[in-house]
């Protein structure tokens, strides 16, 4: 297992309620928990992943997501069991959608 931590600056986003959880920690899948964070224009991300050595790919995938969506003011926690970058991006989008109540 590998533990990864990232921080990205991003446009602030408002939650519809409190936290949002998306996905399931099954084989090839992941769960994403997104909650309000401390810095309005930053997003901190903590990843626990079953695979090792993919830190750079995680960073790239999440950075790309953060550049396209307002995720400032959040903290994101991920438990991953081998999801592909495509699945990770998909779930990030779903999680953000749940978090904002579909408003974005």
């Amino acid at each position, binding site marked *: *297992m590998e533990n990864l931590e990232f921080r990205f600056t991003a446009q602030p986003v408002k939650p519809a309620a*409190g*936290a949002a*959880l998306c996905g*399931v*920690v*099954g084989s090839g*899948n992941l*769960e994403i*928990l997104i*909650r309000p964070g401390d810095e309005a224009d930053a997003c901190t991300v903590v990843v*626990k*992943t*079953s695979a090792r050595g993919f830190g750079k790919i995680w960073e790239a995938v999440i950075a790309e997501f953060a550049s396209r969506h307002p995720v400032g003011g959040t903290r994101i*926690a991920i*438990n*991953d*069991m081998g999801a592909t970058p495509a699945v990770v991006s998909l779930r990030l989008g779903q999680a953000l959608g749940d978090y904002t109540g579909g408003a974005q």
Partner: protein
Amino acid sequence: MNTPVHTSLVLRHSYFEATARSRVAQVLDAGSFREFLPPEVAQPSPHLAILDIPGAFDDGVIIGSAALDGKPVLVIAQEGQFMGGAVGEIHGAKIVGLLRRAALEKPAAVIFMVDSGGVRLHEANAGLIAISEIMRAVLDARAAGVPVLALVGGSCGAFGGMGIVSRLCSAIIMSEEGRLALSGPEVIETVAGVEEFDSKDRALVWRVTGGKHRYLTGDCAELVEDDAAGFRQGAIDVLAGRTEPLPSSTVLRAEQERLSSRRQRFAGMRDGLEVWAALGVPDPGQVSLIDRDSLVALKKGLPA
């Protein structure tokens, strides 16, 4: 512009394929669910972390309160996609806590969506002890007058200690896709050989452990379609007018008699087809093929 609503085209969402969270959202009254120990206040299990497994915030089981047809219920839903729905320390304690809460609060029922292979080997002792505690907690909730309904229709079925727990519940509601047994066919095959149980013969597995077989033998109370609406209605039907019987020797003697006499009646049989024939089903080979409503009608017509 008015868009006509085509009610006949409503998509059926498979209960088998659904996550635990979506099952809870769809089976219980819309918007009624309040989660206890939600993921944002929880941490994955340290027992898994030490084995290099990331774990899940809810440790693979969701618990909370909800309403079913307007009546207050407590809910347990195991996530079969996470580690085979298997029971570890935190997972098990969440279930025990929910059941102990039910004995105190006395809701109209506990809705227990079982989807589990049993003990989580990574936490084997914790899992076994937890299942024993769950067994006692189910019986305590029932003795307090609270029906505990097991819903079995997920990909993991109800096996191992969770197979025992399911049969301790007030009633079991199954879909055809559900499976209920003790040892998994793969384990039996590994130890006793493929002749004893060919675990790759899916049709055989379902003739021995599947919902239709359990329904015909009376090991489950209701057979429902593989969707949330079916399980929801099944639960409502089972609860309608039900009073939870207090534990008594009379009740258990009747069960003892039922189990003993059918042990005799079906002695030597190894396939559901033989049992169904003995039950009086005219064409046992059709059982796997006919739909749920037809099987329910067929069962009604069988000799007592």
